[in-house]
């Protein structure tokens, strides 16, 4: 007798709860219609007469010309300023590596964004060749980090940037392990995964990513692969292109020109 009363009580509480859920449903449906618009823009055309930004019209990538990189590290500094990347020298969204290939065949890789800006004293006669390689998230078209995320917190936007939803990320670090390029880190303050977004907040407004903006030698090129007139398309037409770790089938969208075979 008593149990039946408890059950009925529960049911009385449950059905109004159903009503609340229905209300939530209406709310969310309203949100969804907003969500169909391009992020950051209104559905209507902007006042300056430009068409509203439609992410589906773009597919962004970056080009890096190794021969032009002077290893000045301005990109990594600018990235930290633009994106509030922690100042400690081991958190990077983009960084520059120095490759030194010795006559013996030894390959020495040094992240110059961490360490001393100038090279260590080394017997110049032992060096076969040496160069800088700027690194960043490759914004893979087939991203392993997105595949492993257990809560769908990281995803590819329609315009090809792989970004992290910090509000959904649970900080499990699985994506950090999965990235073959070491492009992710755990943000010490938010305790969520953080990575290069191609400066998503800049590119949707027609600006260049901060690292491309400040690069003194224009070793970095940013552009839209869907546009035949973009700087990146031109870069890819005029250079022999390689990507990092092509054997992993991640289909990176950071394209390197004059990439040495030793670069990993």
């Amino acid at each position: 007798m008593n149990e039946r009363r408890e059950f009925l009580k529960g049911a009385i509480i449950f059905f109004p709860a159903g009503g609340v859920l229905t209300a939530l449903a209406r709310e969310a449906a309203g949100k969804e219609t907003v969500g169909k618009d391009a992020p950051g823009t209104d559905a209507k055309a902007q006042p300056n007469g430009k068409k509203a930004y439609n992410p589906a019209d773009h597919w962004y990538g970056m080009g890096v010309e190794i021969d032009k990189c002077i290893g000045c590290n301005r990109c990594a500094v600018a990235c930290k300023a633009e994106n509030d990347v922690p100042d400690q020298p081991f958190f990077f969204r983009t960084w520059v590596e120095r490759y030194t290939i010795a006559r013996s065949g030894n390959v020495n890789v040094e992240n110059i964004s961490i360490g001393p800006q100038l090279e260590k004293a080394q017997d110049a006669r032992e060096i076969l060749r040496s160069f800088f390689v700027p690194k960043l998230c490759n914004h893979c078209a087939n991203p392993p980090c997105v595949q492993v995320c257990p809560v769908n917190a990281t995803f590819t936007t329609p315009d090809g940037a792989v970004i992290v939803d910090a509000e959904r990320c649970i900080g499990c670090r699985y994506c950090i392990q999965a990235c073959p390029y070491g492009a992710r880190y755990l943000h010490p303050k938010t305790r969520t995964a953080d990575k290069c977004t191609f400066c998503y907040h800049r590119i949707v407004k027609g600006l260049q990513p901060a690292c491309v903006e400040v690069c003194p030698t224009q070793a970095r090129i940013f552009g839209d692969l869907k546009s035949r007139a973009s700087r990146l398309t031109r870069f890819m037409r005029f250079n022999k292109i390689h990507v990092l770790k092509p054997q992993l089938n991640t289909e990176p969208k950071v394209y390197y020109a004059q990439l040495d075979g030793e670069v990993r």
Partner: protein
Amino acid sequence: MKMPEQVNRLAIVIGILVGVTLLTRFVLIPRSLVSTELHWTEAAKREVAKPVKFAGSTVCQDCHEDVAIKKAKGFHKTLACESCHGPAIKHTEDPSAMKPPAPRDRKFCPVCHAYDSSRPTGFPQINPTAHNPLKPCISCHNAHDPVPPKAPRECSACHAQIERAKAVSSHALIGCTTCHNAPARHKTAPRQALPSKPETREFCGTCHGAAGKKAPKEAPKVDLSTHGGRSLCWECHYPHLPEGRV
């Protein structure tokens, strides 16, 4: 087989619970509430809402036209203003509120221009310890239109490796311009204006051919018609360090 009465009742209760759960999950809760697309669109919006800090190179010239014109002609034309002056969106919003810093000491320019063996050949580099110590860079160079006080006169300024090899070779006394014709612009735009290179066997033959009258007697002579077949000379001999010694 007849189920006991209490098992049947329990089955009904469990059945209702399962039914209600399924109804809640698939009918009452809308797809949009659990759809990842909606979450992703919202996340992208939050990303877009983040503040921009670098104003972009095109904004500066609206006010600083004189500097922009000067810079556009010089070696620093590919440099964005904010490469040196730092993020300046606040300055574009209210010029008096924030003045972008200008690096005036000797620490900043060597970030790019200190000698580093990994830097590409031809990029202007100095040794900060030896290069006019204690003098700020801007006392000789204008950062908006930097010009080397003197354009490099000798090829060895950039091509030191070739110069060193040639210096100990039998070609030590032959100047670079004997074989290469470098346009004047090669000193300022090394990659755009490339020097010429010899293209024919006959070029080497002017000294090393049987009829080579230009060369000193000790230059080894070969018969061009029989020596090396159709190979070009530099396919076997390195002209900057030819193997034959006098």
